[in-house]
């Protein structure tokens, strides 16, 4: 059997290589992606590790790459560009201020004072400025200001140079920038044109600087990806080196790795390659060692099986070399989904969607959206779900809530009328609904519809009475079959681990318990289906089952077949006997074995007295543990049989919900538009169909699809897997650069 049915056999290997070739060798192993390094320095903190400086350097480089997109000499260039740009911006702001100043200056012309100070000051400082001016000069000045932008443009007209000097000093104190303004209008106009030209020039220069900056950055960005991945690889290599041991001579590195046995050769080749690259003379030594530690669980998957393996691992990674439920889940999960989804029209849409995802996989992955990534990862699952839904939809005879009549229905109406049957034309006038009676000859042809549910049920008003009974029984049959399959897989596990004791002590009582009760229930269902009986005398299977457990045979008409009573009593007694077998047999056997061991070892243990005493104490504790554990397992299994079987009824419930929703969409949305007879009907139909399509996709495909997915998953995780799966292993996480790159 290939490795997908069971996790691969792993071995613990010691590697010895020289310090110079360490980097190259680990690089080769990272590309191979098949080894997991064990931590040989578990006690040391991150800061105490040997290569912590190198790791820090790599992290620093990563940070730079992520945030600022600068690197090495590029950093200097960019710094230069940025400072140039800042100076230019400053000049630009100054020129703009002068421009504003000149603009408003003309408004102040009618003041005849010929000395003035003109400038620009920050808006919030202006009131203080004004106040101090008043305090100092007692109104011997005229101050005018305007507020074009955030800054205030002001002019102070004064008489006398001394005052002007003082005001200049005041302006300096307030960090207001002063500009010389010419007296006459002509000079001002000239200055304005001058300033405007300079502004235009500066604008151009600024634009060019920005463009240059952009081109340098884009050139850098092209290499960015490459640098980032290189830094990531280096960081991973140094991190791995931190896990290894360095011996005293500082020349040899010792590493311990977990590796699949079948890949030992490729690992060896990769190491030789790495050491050749680094030019070292000695080739690395590969030494396989025996160990008691539990190896990690490794399931080799390809792109088709990885989706299913990941949904199994989401619940729990399997124990080392325990049976892997994934290959069976690949069919049973989409199948149980389809039983709950059961509509061939919706199934077809789902299959086409999955095909689209499969064919354009790279395109979707480039979008880097989390939700779409999840859909793309599960594309094969969705594809299989769609395919099986088409099949179950054909069996349920449900396509967008309508049925196909391919083979001709088995029910006919004509024989119900005179002279064959009880109806006349008057009967039709009297009542709204009439039941066809299968006992009248000819009404039921005697041969069931060859493929699926008869199409007459789609137009019958008591459709649910038939479908509910059919689907509930179907769910119970599917459930018991699924659970029996799970219990059988536990047998396969016991045989693989050579645990034949558990086969007799656990597997056999479990199987007999389940078969005697629920296998018999299946038999009753099949018997009632296959044998002809009158409707009045047909006993309800549920009541039969309940009475069987209560040993109640008093009521009339409770037999399906002649020898029912003794058979049922026998089966219940057998089932009840299985419970103490499950509960007590294994712990008692273990107890006896340990007692024998203890008595045997006493004469030899005078010198080992301490050891035996400790062992004896630990034995007592573990005996109680074993009893409790076995008790829990028995209760869980026996009660679980009943509750899990009932849990499978969700197959019925969800398929009912889906069918009803789809019928509502047909009756209340599309049929309304189809019944309109006026000319506008076609327009209305087009609009209504759009609504129908949107509702179908969002409610029936997305919502019901997610719901059925979840419930099918739960049925696998709980009802199926608790029969055989332990799921407490740890996953094999090899050093793999491909995986790191895909995870970005």
């Amino acid at each position, binding site marked *: *059997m*290939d490795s*997908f*049915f069971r996790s691969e056999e792993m071995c613990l290997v010691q590697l010895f290589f020289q310090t110079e070739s360490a980097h190259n060798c680990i690089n080769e192993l990272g590309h191979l992606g098949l080894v997991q390094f064990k931590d040989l320095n578990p006690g040391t903190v991150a800061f105490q590790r040997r290569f912590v400086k190198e790791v820090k350097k790599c992290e620093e480089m990563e940070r730079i790459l992520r945030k600022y997109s600068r690197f090495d000499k590029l950093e200097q260039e960019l710094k230069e560009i940025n400072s140039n740009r800042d100076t230019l911006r400053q000049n630009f702001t100054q020129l703009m201020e002068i421009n504003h100043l000149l603009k408003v200056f003309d408004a102040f012309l009618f003041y005849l004072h010929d000395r003035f100070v003109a400038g620009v000051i920050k808006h919030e400082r202006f009131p203080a400025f004004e106040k101090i001016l008043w305090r100092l000069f007692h109104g011997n000045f005229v101050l005018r200001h305007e507020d074009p932008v955030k800054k205030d443009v002001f002019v102070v007209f004064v008489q006398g140079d001394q005052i002007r000097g003082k005001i200049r000093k005041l302006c300096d104190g307030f960090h207001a920038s002063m500009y010389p303004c010419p007296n006459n209008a002509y000079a001002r106009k000239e200055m304005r044109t001058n300033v405007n030209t300079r502004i235009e020039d500066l604008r151009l220069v600024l634009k060019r600087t920005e463009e240059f900056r952009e081109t340098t950055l884009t050139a850098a960005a092209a290499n960015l990806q490459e640098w980032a991945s290189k830094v990531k690889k280096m960081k991973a290599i140094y991190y791995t080196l931190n896990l290894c041991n360095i011996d005293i001579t500082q020349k040899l590195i010792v590493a311990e790795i977990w590796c699949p046995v079948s890949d030992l050769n490729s690992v060896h080749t990769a190491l030789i390659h790495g050491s050749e690259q680094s030019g070292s003379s000695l080739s690395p030594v590969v030494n396989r060692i025996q160990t008691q530690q539990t190896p990690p669980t490794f399931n080799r998957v*390809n792109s088709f*099986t990885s989706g299913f393996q990941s949904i199994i691992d989401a619940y729990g990674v399997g124990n080392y070399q325990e049976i892997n439920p994934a*290959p*069976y889940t*690949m*069919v*049973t999960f989409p*199948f149980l989904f389809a039983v709950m989804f059961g509509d061939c029209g919706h199934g077809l849409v789902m299959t086409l969607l999955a095909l689209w995802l499969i064919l354009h996989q790279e395109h979707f992955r480039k979008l880097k959206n989390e939700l779409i990534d999840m859909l793309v990862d599960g594309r094969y699952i969705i594809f299989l779900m769609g395919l099986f839904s088409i*099949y*179950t939809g054909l*069996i349920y005879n449900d396509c967008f809530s309508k049925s196909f009549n391919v083979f001709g*229905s*088995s*029910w*006919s*109406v*004509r024989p119900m*009328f005179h002279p064959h049957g009880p109806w006349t034309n008057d009967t*039709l*006038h009297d*009542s709204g*609904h*009439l*039941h*066809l*009676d*299968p006992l009248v000859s000819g*009404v*039921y042809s005697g*041969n*069931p*519809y*060859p*493929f*699926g*549910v*008869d199409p*007459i049920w789609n*137009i*019958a*008003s*008591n459709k649910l*009475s*038939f479908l509910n009974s*059919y689907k509930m*029984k*179907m769910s119970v049959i*599917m459930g018991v079959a699924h659970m029996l399959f799970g219990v059988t897989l536990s047998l396969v596990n016991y045989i693989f681990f050579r645990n034949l004791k558990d086969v007799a002590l656990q597997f056999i009582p479990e199987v007999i318990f389940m078969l005697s009760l629920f296998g018999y229930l299946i038999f009753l269902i*099949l018997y009632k*289906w*296959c*044998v*002809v*009986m009158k*409707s009045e005398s*047909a006993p309800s299977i549920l009541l039969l089952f309940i009475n069987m457990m209560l040993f109640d045979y008093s009521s009339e008409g409770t037999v399906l077949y002649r020898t029912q009573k003794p058979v049922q009593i026998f089966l219940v007694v057998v089932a009840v006997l299985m419970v103490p077998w499950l509960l007590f047999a294994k712990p008692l056997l273990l107890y006896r074995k340990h007692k024998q061991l203890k008595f045997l070892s006493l004469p030899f243990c005078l010198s080992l007295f301490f050891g035996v005493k400790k062992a004896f104490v630990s034995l007592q504790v573990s005996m109680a543990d074993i009893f409790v554990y076995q008790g829990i397992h028995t209760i869980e299994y026996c009660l679980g049989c009943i509750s899990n079987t009932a849990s499978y009824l969700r197959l019925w419930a969800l398929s009912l919900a889906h069918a009803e929703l789809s019928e509502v969409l047909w009756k209340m949305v599309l049929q309304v538009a189809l019944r309109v007879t006026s000319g506008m009907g076609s327009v209305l139909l087009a609009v209504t169909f759009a609504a129908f399509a949107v509702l179908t996709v969002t409610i029936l495909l997305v919502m019901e699809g997610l719901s059925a997915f979840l419930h099918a998953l739960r049925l696998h995780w709980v009802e199926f897997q608790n029969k055989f799966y332990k799921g407490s292993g740890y996953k094999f996480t090899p050093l793999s650069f491909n995986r790191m790159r895909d995870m970005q």
Partner: protein
Amino acid sequence: MAFAIPMVIVTLFWGFVGGVVPWFIPKGPNRGVVITMLVLTAVCCYLFWLIAILSQLNPLFGPALSNDTIWYLQFHWR
């Protein structure tokens, strides 16, 4: 008698899918997985079809139809 025909055909079909096709899957790393999938598909689908047909074999009650439906069916179905 007409019940036997679909029974035989469908049983043979799924028997072929689950029992004969696995022998022709070429050797490769995926052989075991493909065979498992074929067998499980055949078993699941056959069981599902079998339940559907057995449940309709001996009906205990018939469909309840409205007047209009009965009127239509009386003339249009044979």
